[in-house]
């Protein structure tokens, strides 16, 4: 690349200006990456949702329970191949800041229902035999420095009192986006301690169906089965269920898109202005290049190359910094377990950065290309 020094020399003739422009890209792409991480965290449920799983909740509200007696009826509905259930426990460890999701699960069917969570068989065996046992996600273990064999007290907020659990096993996610901050314990233990109000009641059912294409039909069949009962149901796909949660937080998508657009538009103006000034300052030099035989196309590519170089280096640095930031893990203490800059977001960020570089450079580059040598040399 014999022209390399031409691009580099021009970029660094005004070091402060180049550094500030580069800084604009770094900040913008860091922000882009951060927004993508937050977006991913909010939409994690959508990404991990199983296509062949339906969630059955109380039609009135998710916080209303359903009877455990529905389990057998659900299993008999055509198309349903597996049924499990869980309860939201809502406890805290040591103090309120230490939030993480705890579920009272029906152990064997729960493990079958969510094969993406991997628990060693020996640990699972200990868990199933231990009435007060718990399986916890590896990120949660890291967060509180727990280990297998520890006894952990959880203070109930919905279910009063302090609940003590033995950590019998640690699960891992089979995909990077899997949530490994959950805490599972036996539904039987919950039912046993809360037998006055919660006997025979569960939070929600998850059912597996034989064919994702049948989801609508099976969901309707489930809701029809329990229609006009004291515990009517609302059944939807796991993805729709997760999307409902995201919606409750407001239109995050629109918010992120608005902020991102403003940032990139501002970046476009800043970079476009910088490139225009840089070209205006160098009219004579560009004219000399043309006079000695460099083509119009070369001059266009030279200016565009500078703009794209700034975009790639600045954008890359911004995304790299964002990646470093996310490596420290969830900064919210458990609200965003999936705090991760995914590869598609990095690629999208670099493409956005390149697009801005291209858009910012094209007009000055075009002006440089159209430059009339004799006119430019006449200017002092």
């Amino acid at each position, binding site marked *: 690349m*014999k*022209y390399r*020094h*031409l691009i580099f*020399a*021009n970029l*660094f*003739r005004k070091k402060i200006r180049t550094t500030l422009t580069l800084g604009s890209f770094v900040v913008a792409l860091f922000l882009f990456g951060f927004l993508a991480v937050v977006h991913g965290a909010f939409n994690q449920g959508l990404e991990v949702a199983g296509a062949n799983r339906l969630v059955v909740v109380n039609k009135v509200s998710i916080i209303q329970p359903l009877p455990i007696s529905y389990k057998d009826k659900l299993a008999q509905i055509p198309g349903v191949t597996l049924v499990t259930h869980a309860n939201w426990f809502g406890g805290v460890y040591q103090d309120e800041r230490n939030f993480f999701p705890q579920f009272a699960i029906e152990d064997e069917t729960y493990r079958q229902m969510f094969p993406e969570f991997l628990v060693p068989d020996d640990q699972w065996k200990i868990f199933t035999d231990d009435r007060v046992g718990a399986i916890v996600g590896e990120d949660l273990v890291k967060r509180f420095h727990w280990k297998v064999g520890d006894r952990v007290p959880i203070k109930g907020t919905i279910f009063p009192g302090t609940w003590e659990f033995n950590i019998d096993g640690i699960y891992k996610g089979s995909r990077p986006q899997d949530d490994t901050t959950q805490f599972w314990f036996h539904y039987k233990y919950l039912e046993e301690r809360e037998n006055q109000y919660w006997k025979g009641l569960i939070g929600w059912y998850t059912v597996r169906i034989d064919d994702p294409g049948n989801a609508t039909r099976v969901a309707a069949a489930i809701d029809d089965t329990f229609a006009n009962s004291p515990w009517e149901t609302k059944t939807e796909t796991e993805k729709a269920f997760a999307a409902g949660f995201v919606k409750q937080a407001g239109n995050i998508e629109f918010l992120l898109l608005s902020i991102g657009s403003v940032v990139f538009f501002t970046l476009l103006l800043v970079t476009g202005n910088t490139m225009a000034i840089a070209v205006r300052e160098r009219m*004579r*030099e560009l004219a*000399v*290049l*043309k*006079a*000695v*035989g*460099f*083509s*119009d196309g070369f001059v266009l590519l030279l200016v565009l190359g500078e703009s794209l170089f700034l975009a790639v280096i600045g954008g890359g640095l911004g995304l790299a910094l964002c990646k470093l930031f996310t490596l420290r893990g969830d900064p919210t203490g458990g609200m965003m377990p999936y705090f991760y800059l995914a590869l598609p977001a990095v690629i999208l960020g670099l493409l956005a950065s390149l697009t801005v570089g291209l858009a910012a450079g094209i007009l000055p580059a075009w002006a440089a290309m159209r430059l*009339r*040598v*004799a006119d430019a*040399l*006449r200017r*002092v």
Partner: protein
Amino acid sequence: MVRVDGRGDGSSLVRVRGLDKKYQRGSEEIHVLQGLNLDVDAGDFVAFMGPSGSGKTTLLNLLGGIDLPSAGSITVAGDEITHMSASKLTAWRARHVGFIFQMYNLIPVLTAFQNVELPLLLTHLSKAERRKHVEAALGIVGLAERMEHYPRQLSGGQEQRVGIARAIVADPTFLLCDEPTGDLDRKSADEVMELLSRLVREHKKTVLLVTHDPVAAERAQTVLHLNKGVLVEGRTVEAK
């Protein structure tokens, strides 16, 4: 042999016939060159003189293919350049023309070496071959030891010599010099003119020079005066 009567025998290196150049300034039409004829042979050293606005630089730009005439033709080494496409003209310039400017027009962020190397980047020469050519050109202008210096680290005279090295490095057919001493003190100007004379004398270069400076013009074999868009023959002497 330089002729301005349009009766050259066709063997000349530069052949100009009926060259017209008009500019439009608002509603006014300015006729800069009018039916100009010129024949220059290879190895000639020609100086164009004339008052400001007489069209000297315009003529040089037209000969160098960086401006287009309103009418007439220019033929250099058998190539009729007035009807070439922009891209062909660019390639032609790279092969045939070495420009030397009044303000040197070096690229300030490149070293003397890199500035001189620029025209060679358009060739298929290897890096080592380019280095050899650049060192030779800088050697001719007496700046072999300054090749890693940036223009700001050189005097005006040295900058112009780097400009001359850039102009000769690709061994062009002819050199077009637009007031090369206009921004220099007497001593530096004499050095630059001596260098141009030496290029004609020892390296058989063809040099077309525009100048206001009669002392600089003295170095040329032929001095032509441009007045109101018409070339008038001046004196012709043996090259110094």
